[in-house]
C-alpha cells in the first residue's frame, strides 16, 4: 500500500495526463476513422476546460455536472459550425479547423472579464482523481468500441473510403460526419474539464498549436483502425519523453518528429505496423 501511495505522490500528474491524453486521442480517432482531418480538438478541449473550471470556480456546481457541461458546450459549438464546415473536403477542412482553433484561442484571450485573458484561470479546485479519469475512459472506450463493431462503424469505414458511393446507398453522410464531429468535440471537452482540475492553472496557450499537434500525433501514431490504436498512441506519446530521461521539455519536438516519421514510414499508424509485424512473424514461422 505504501509503495502505491508513494508512487502516486510522485507520478499522479503523469498518470492523469496519460488518462486525459487517451481521451483526446480517442476524440480525434473518431474523426480520422471517417477520413476527416480535423485539427480543432485542442480548441474544443480548451472550451471544455474553461467551461468546467468556471463552473467550479464561480458557482457551487458539483464536479460531475461541471464536467458534463464542459463536454456539452464544445458539442454545441461543433454542432453550430459543423454543418457548413464539414462540407469542405480534405485540405480545406484541415485548414478550416486549424483556423477555428486559432479563433477560439483569440476569443478566450480577449474575453478577459470571463476567462482572465492571458493570465488564465488560477486556483482551480483539484477535483480530478484517477477514478473519474478511469471512468471517463471506460465509458468512452465502451461507446467507441460498440460503435466500431456496429453497422455505424461499418458505415464510417465506408465514408472513409468513398463518401459519394456511401451517400448514394441511401446513407445520410453529412449527418454521420456531423455526429462524429460533435461526439469528438464532446470527448475532447470532457478531457479538457478533467485536465483543468488537476493542473490547477489553465491559460489560452495550453490549447493552441502545440496541443493540437500533440493530439494529432497521438491520433496518427495510433492510426484510424481501432480505438485501441488511439490508446496506444496516447500512452506512448505521453510517456516517451519522460522515459527518455527527462526529455520532457522537448515534448513538442518529439511529437513533431513522431508525426513526420510515422506519416512517411507507417501512415496507418502503429496499430498497422504491429499487425504487419505479427503477420510477417507468423509467415516466417510457417516456413
Amino acid at each position, binding site marked *: 500500500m505504501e509503495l502505491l501511495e508513494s508512487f502516486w505522490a510522485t507520478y499522479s500528474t503523469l498518470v492523469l495526463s496519460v488518462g486525459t491524453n487517451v481521451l483526446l486521442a480517442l476524440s480525434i480517432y473518431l474523426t480520422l476513422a471517417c477520413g476527416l482531418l480535423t485539427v480543432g480538438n485542442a480548441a474544443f478541449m480548451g472550451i471544455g476546460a474553461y467551461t468546467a473550471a468556471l463552473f467550479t470556480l464561480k458557482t457551487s456546481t458539483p464536479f460531475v455536472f461541471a464536467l458534463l457541461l464542459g463536454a456539452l458546450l464544445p458539442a454545441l459549438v461543433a454542432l453550430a459550425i459543423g454543418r457548413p464546415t464539414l462540407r469542405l473536403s480534405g485540405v480545406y477542412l484541415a485548414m478550416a479547423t486549424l483556423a477555428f482553433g486559432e479563433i477560439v484561442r483569440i476569443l478566450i484571450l480577449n474575453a478577459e472579464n470571463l476567462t482572465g485573458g492571458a493570465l488564465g484561470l488560477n486556483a482551480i479546485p483539484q477535483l480530478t482523481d484517477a477514478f473519474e479519469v478511469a471512468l471517463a475512459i471506460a465509458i468512452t472506450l465502451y461507446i467507441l468500441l*460498440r460503435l466500431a463493431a456496429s453497422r455505424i462503424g461499418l458505415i464510417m469505414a465506408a465514408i472513409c473510403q468513398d463518401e459519394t458511393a456511401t451517400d*448514394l446507398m*441511401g446513407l445520410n453522410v453529412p449527418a454521420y460526419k456531423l455526429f462524429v464531429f460533435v461526439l469528438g468535440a464532446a470527448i475532447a471537452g470532457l478531457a479538457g474539464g478533467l485536465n483543468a482540475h488537476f493542473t490547477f492553472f489553465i491559460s489560452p496557450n495550453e490549447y493552441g498549436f502545440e496541443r493540437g499537434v500533440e493530439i494529432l500525433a497521438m491520433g496518427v501514431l495510433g492510426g484510424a483502425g481501432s480505438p485501441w490504436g488511439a490508446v496506444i498512441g496516447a500512452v506512448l506519446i505521453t510517456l516517451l519523453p519522460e522515459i527518455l530521461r527527462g526529455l520532457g521539455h522537448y515534448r513538442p519536438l518529439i511529437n513533431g518528429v513522431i508525426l513526420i516519421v510515422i506519416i512517411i514510414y507507417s501512415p496507418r499508424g502503429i496499430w498497422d505496423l504491429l499487425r504487419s509485424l505479427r503477420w510477417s512473424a507468423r509467415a516466417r514461422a510457417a516456413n
Partner: protein
Amino acid sequence: MLTLSSISKNFAGLQVLHEVSLAVPERGIFGLIGPNGAGKTTVFNLITGLLMPTAGTIEFFGQRLDGMAPHRVTRSGIARTFQNIRVFKEMTLLENVLVAMGDRARFSMLGVLLPLLAYRDAERRERQAACELLSRVGLLDKANFFAGTLSYGEQRRLEIARALATQPKLLLLDEPAAGMNSVEKQQLMDEIVKLGNANLSILIIDHDMRFIMGLCEQIAVLNFGRLIARGTPDEIRADPGVIEAYLGRDHAPEPVIQP
C-alpha cells in the same frame, strides 16, 4: 414512373445536355446510348442528385427529384452502379452489402450501445438478406473476401448486389458490361433479364450494341447532349440520325475518273 422534362445542364458555359425529355415506365429494361461525350453519365448524375439541372425538372412517382440530396434519392427507390467501379475495396463483400442495407434496420443508438436481443435479431436477419443478395449474383462463396481481391467482372456483380440491397424500384446501370469478355457479358445479360422480371425497372447505359439491343425493350439515343431518337431496337437500328451519329454521313467525294 421517372420523367425527365426538358432537362438542360451546362458546366460554366459548356452545354452538356440540351432539353432532354425522357420517360421510363414502371417495369422493363431500357437503354440509353450515344457516342462518347453525349451526356449519358451526366443524365445519371442528374437523376441521382449528384448534379443539379440548369433547367428542367425530374420527377419520380410524381415527386420532384432535382435538388434532392443523393441519399434521399436513393431512399426514394433509385439505385445506381458506376462506370468506374466504386466498391469498398478494403471491406469484405458481405460488409459492402451490409453498408448498402444501411439504416434500414432502424437500429437505434440504444441498440448499438447495449447488445439487446432485438437488435441482434435484426442484425442477423440483415446478414441473411445480404447473403441472399450475394448468392443472387453468384458471389456467396466469396462473401468474406475483401472486395479488392475480386476480378473486374466480379466487382461489377458486387456493385449490382449492393445496388439491389437498397431495394430500388429503378436501377441505373452505368456501363455494366465494360471490361467483360463475351462469356461474362452473356451471364450478365441473363442476370439482368432475371432482374427485369422481378418487378424492377432498369435503365442501362452501354456501348456494346449487341448487349443493348439484346436486352432493352426501348432505347433512347443521345448525341451532343440532345435526344435524337427513341424507340424499339429495330427502330433505332434503322434510324438515319442514329447511324449518322455513330458512323458519320457519307462525305466521300465523287471519284475523278469513272471506273
